[in-house]
């Protein structure tokens, strides 16, 4: 009965390095979302998966950001050539389907710090 898990919980990296953030959604959930939360801000939508496909990548802030989902389960968000403005908490959420009446279950997040 595990919830959404994310790893690592904290990541400190140097500017210019690549990072990979992992999300394990609730088993059986077909929809998966990535959000970014900067200090004092709301949650900013990044990308959404329905199954393994990403119908909407409109929230990705630049082409340095990419994500994939395999087996309808685990998702990885990759940030290449990290910049200081990428520092934030990256949250993953899953829901049973992408229907409007479905709540999203959030993971604890990965706090990314780019030095």
């Amino acid at each position, binding site marked *: 009965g595990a919830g*959404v898990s994310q790893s690592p919980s904290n990541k400190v990296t140097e500017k210019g390095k690549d990072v990979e953030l992992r999300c394990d959604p609730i088993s059986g959930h077909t*929809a998966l*979302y990535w959000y970014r939360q900067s200090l004092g801000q*709301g949650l900013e939508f990044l990308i959404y998966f329905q199954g393994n496909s990403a*119908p909407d990548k409109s929230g990705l802030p630049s082409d340095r950001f990419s994500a994939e989902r395999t087996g309808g389960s685990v998702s990885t968000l990759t940030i290449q050539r990290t910049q200081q403005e990428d520092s934030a908490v990256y949250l993953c959420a899953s*829901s049973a389907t992408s229907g*409007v009446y479905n*709540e999203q279950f959030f993971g604890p997040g990965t706090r990314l710090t780019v030095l």
Partner: protein
Amino acid sequence: QQPVQSPQAVILREGEDAVINCSSSKALYSVHWYRQKHGEAPVFLMILLKGGEQKGHEKISASFNEKKQQSSLYLTASQLSYSGTYFCGTPLPGGGNKLTFGTGTQLKVEL
């Protein structure tokens, strides 16, 4: 597209009531409410749909005024456990239940 929340912060004594408001410049068909405690994941509170359907926790009540594009969350007889940051989320265009969230309302309940 981000909804606007008010107030930004509120401090209550245990047992007092509070109302948190969320408004959008765009027509809404749903509003989602979440609460986040410091260092924790946001937790679902309620979904309100155009037409009056609601889904959420029994002890939480909310309203959705479609014409005014506003929603309000009502916290009555507040408890210490109600402390946290409350976010409202509204759908982004294109379906998929993708949400854009307000900047949050910080609620602190004291003895």
